[in-house]
């Protein structure tokens, strides 16, 4: 009976080790993210794309304007959002207040330690135009390479169209 318990313990330890390696890779190196929703059309499909995201650039402060990033939502902390960086700290950002109805623009300077993120589909995106600039420390990962669907396999475009 003890040999069964020992075997169970060894197998569990093995699973725990494998999970630990997977978790550390996911949290600090590279992870696969499912990005869905209308806010990044046409760059990311509505029904969802699987995209490789790396977590090293944000730590090394190598995130810049034009990058698509995964950011922890400042409004619902349990959620992450995928948007494009439009302005870094110190940049002046100009945006349409209500793209459906008017041409009125507003312009702000991104404060120190923050970034301004916007979805590519400005007509249907909740982003910095709604919740303001986001502290840089909330940027979690940078999208690198789309792996699914196969017809869109390839690197994520760096510059917004």
């Amino acid at each position, binding site marked *: 009976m003890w040999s069964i318990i020992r075997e169970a313990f060894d197998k569990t330890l093995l699973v725990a*080790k494998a999970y*630990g*390696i997977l*978790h*550390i890779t996911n949290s600090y190196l590279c992870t696969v993210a499912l990005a869905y929703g209308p806010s990044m059309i046409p760059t990311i499909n509505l029904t969802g794309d699987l995209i490789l995201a790396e977590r090293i650039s944000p730590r090394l*402060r190598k995130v810049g304007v034009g990058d698509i990033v995964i950011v*922890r*939502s*400042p*409004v*619902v*902390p349990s959620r992450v959002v995928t948007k494009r960086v439009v302005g870094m700290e110190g940049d002046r950002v100009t945006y349409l207040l209500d793209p459906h109805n008017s041409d009125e623009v507003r312009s702000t300077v991104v*404060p*120190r*330690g*923050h970034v301004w993120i916007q979805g590519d589909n400005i007509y249907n995106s909740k982003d910095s135009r709604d919740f303001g600039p*986001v*502290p*840089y*420390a*909330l940027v979690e990962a940078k999208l690198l390479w789309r792996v699914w669907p196969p017809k869109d396999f390839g690197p994520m475009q760096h510059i917004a169209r």
Partner: protein
Amino acid sequence: MKLLSYIKQWKSAARETIARASIAAQFLSLIHITDAYICSTTLVQGPSMLPTLNYSGDVVLIEHLSHRLGKLEPGDIVVVRSPVDPKKIVAKRIVGMEGDRVTYLTEPSYSESSRTVLVPKGHVWIQGDNVYASADSRYFGAVPYGLIQGRAFLRVWPIRDFGFLG
């Protein structure tokens, strides 16, 4: 022939190195997972949390469970990544959660004037206990909840101040 025996020796040495390195890696990962997700220690220094924490530095234990479970409340001392300098981590007390109304003195050294704010959704209002010398939410506004790294619950050094923080 000699080359083959060299390769054999190298192979067994490499195997043993990998085995030992993997044990070291597992140990380090265990330490890291405990440090990042369960409990860690930090040196906290500066005037902003006087008299609760000393100016010259206290070693405190930080637990990383409460903020993930959403169990933080006003009165908790939390460590938070600074919204104005992402490389810096600050220790302050939570004064208001999302939806709370917070009233604070705008210039505590000079006047009695105060301001009241409503803490927005997904944010917390943090203040240092020493309102006269603390850069906190009165200066940089409410902080998104996602910036909270953990809650300081026990001071371990200096020994005469050993005890739970509350």
